[in-house]
């Protein structure tokens, strides 16, 4: 486990600048209390992994960060801007926050290249040529440049997910959110997506990943966060999180997940 520590925050010089901050966030679905007093600070360049049992509110937490879900209490601050009901404000924040979904959500009516160029052209107002060149650059980085003119339906799941990552990167986001990006994939495809994510982490991207890939958490995470029943139960650096879990719930969860 010694290699891991070189990656963890203790060894890495982290910027003090806060990228994402959740302060006492509470959310209800009707009467159901999904998020209970969630506090989280993510610094620039930090890599966070969130794990926890199904239905614990992991997706809800990160979807609140780019306002796909609305929270009812507490503050969410992204890159210095506090989220509120103002549409312009929300659009500004979404521009700076990339998101990768479990089910890829590529636009089936556009080619891979067009998928990547859409937002740069219409949101960032970049000339098409430049947008395409940039898209090609990112597609190359996720090693899928030869598929640029195909439609999403013609690609495998792993390829689609890599396109989805490239699509987000084309907006030059400051933070990337991943919501179980590999859980809809076959084992051999999981690796190709994880490799891309690891590379991204090494380049210094701020990342918040909901994932159950513990190998990924051990290699790249600065911090692992365990959620249960809508609250953050435990957070720690990966080494201590996996080797010396403090809470009983965490121990139970880890023992279940590591059996597989």
């Amino acid at each position: 486990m010694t290699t891991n520590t070189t990656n963890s925050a203790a060894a890495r010089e982290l910027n003090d600048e806060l990228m994402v901050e959740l302060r006492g966030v509470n959310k209800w679905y009707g009467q159901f209390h999904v998020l209970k007093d969630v506090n989280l600070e993510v610094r620039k360049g930090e890599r966070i992994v969130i794990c926890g049992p199904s239905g614990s509110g992991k997706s809800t937490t990160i979807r609140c960060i780019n306002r796909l879900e609305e929270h009812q209490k507490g503050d969410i601050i992204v890159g210095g801007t506090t989220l509120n009901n103002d549409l312009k404000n929300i659009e500004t924040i979404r521009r700076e926050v990339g998101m990768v979904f479990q089910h890829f959500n590529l636009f089936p009516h556009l080619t891979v290249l067009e998928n990547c160029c859409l937002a740069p052209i219409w949101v960032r107002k970049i000339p098409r040529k430049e947008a395409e060149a940039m898209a090609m650059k990112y597609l190359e980085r996720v090693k899928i440049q030869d598929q640029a003119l195909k439609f999403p339906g013609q690609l495998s799941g792993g390829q689609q997910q890599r396109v989805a990552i490239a699509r987000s990167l084309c907006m030059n986001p400051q933070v990337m959110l991943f919501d179980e990006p590999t859980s809809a994939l076959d084992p051999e495809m999981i690796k190709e997506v994880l490799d891309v994510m690891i590379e991204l982490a090494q380049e210094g991207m701020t990342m918040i990943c909901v994932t159950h890939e513990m190998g990924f958490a051990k290699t790249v995470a600065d911090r692992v966060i365990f959620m249960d029943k809508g609250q953050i139960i435990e957070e720690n650096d990966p080494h201590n999180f996996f080797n010396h879990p403090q809470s009983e719930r965490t121990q139970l969860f880890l023992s279940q997940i590591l059996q597989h």
Partner: protein
Amino acid sequence: MQSDAKKSPSAPSTKTRFWHDPAKRALVFQILLVLGVFAVLWFIVQNTLHNLESRGITTGFAFLSQEAGFGIIQSLVEYSESSSYGQTFLVGLLNTILVSALGIFFATVLGFIIGVARLSNNWLVAKLASAYVEIFRNIPLLLQIFFWYFAVLRALPSPRQSFQPFDNVFLNVRGLFMPQPMPQQGFELVWWALLIAIAGSVVLARWSKKRQDATGQLFPVYKTALALIIGLPLIVFWLSGSPLTWDEPALRGFNFRGGMTIIPELAALLVALSIYTAAFIAEIVRSGIQAVSKGQTEAASALGLSKAKVLRLVVIPQSVRVIIPPLTSQYLNLIKNSSLATAIGYPDLVSVFAGTTLNQTGQAIEVIFMTMLVYLTLSLLVSAFMNWFNTRMALVER
């Protein structure tokens, strides 16, 4: 099929037996079908010839050039009692096309509005739109036509007591009377201005796309084009000294003369057709939009696209493909349903041709044949156009 086999001539039993060869089986079956169809046709033709003869009706299309001898309350071309049945046919056809085209236009506009309203996040608006759909699509169209015609329009006051919603607009039991614009000398310039504005908008759209590709800057094409298309003709109209007079309707005796008239038959048919078909179109639009999964809108908004752009760039292109095929069949239904005109006496094709002309001439075969041919051709044309449109959309997208 087994019984057919016994009827067929027994085959040489060398290799596979005749009846066990699927290809031969199919051949025999098809020959029998053709023979059967011909037998039925033969029976029909024989009987028809015999019946026509005994009734003293001559077949052929010569009647089309005979004088019709009846008037028609609305015609888009020159028509009088001394016109021929051929002209009757034409008048009916044009009236059918008129009400269908107008109906398609209004039903589409109304249907899209209500379909989108059904998805509104305003509960009350969504429920009102659902109520509209559930009420109007579950009541027979003929009944709705009767309601608008007999219960509403026929109950309007006589010309002398007309409603007057605006100056010079009169609504009474004879119809809706409005001033008719009469272009004077110099009005052509306005048409030219409109043409130029439209051409200009096309050029503008191309230019703005090029500029966006090159520099990334967006240009408000729709707004500018709209301003151009409305503004330019208006300016030209004003500069050329307003070359337009209005022919105003005026009460002469028992009715209005002059101006434009929308006869109540047309109004009732049009209102009923549009309202009825809009209910179906609304359903199509709703399900077409819902067919685009929530993940798509989420992904698009997560990229920072505004609500309007999410709709325009992601949702609409995908839902159009789902919407067009059923929309086409609604258009076809509307065209066919316009034939209910007969019931209230709007002079459409079925009413003046398959109705009056058939009764006067007795040429049932020819008249019904021509009428059916018209509907089949219209159906074919509309399907062909929508297919073309759909493949074009599909090609652009995939």
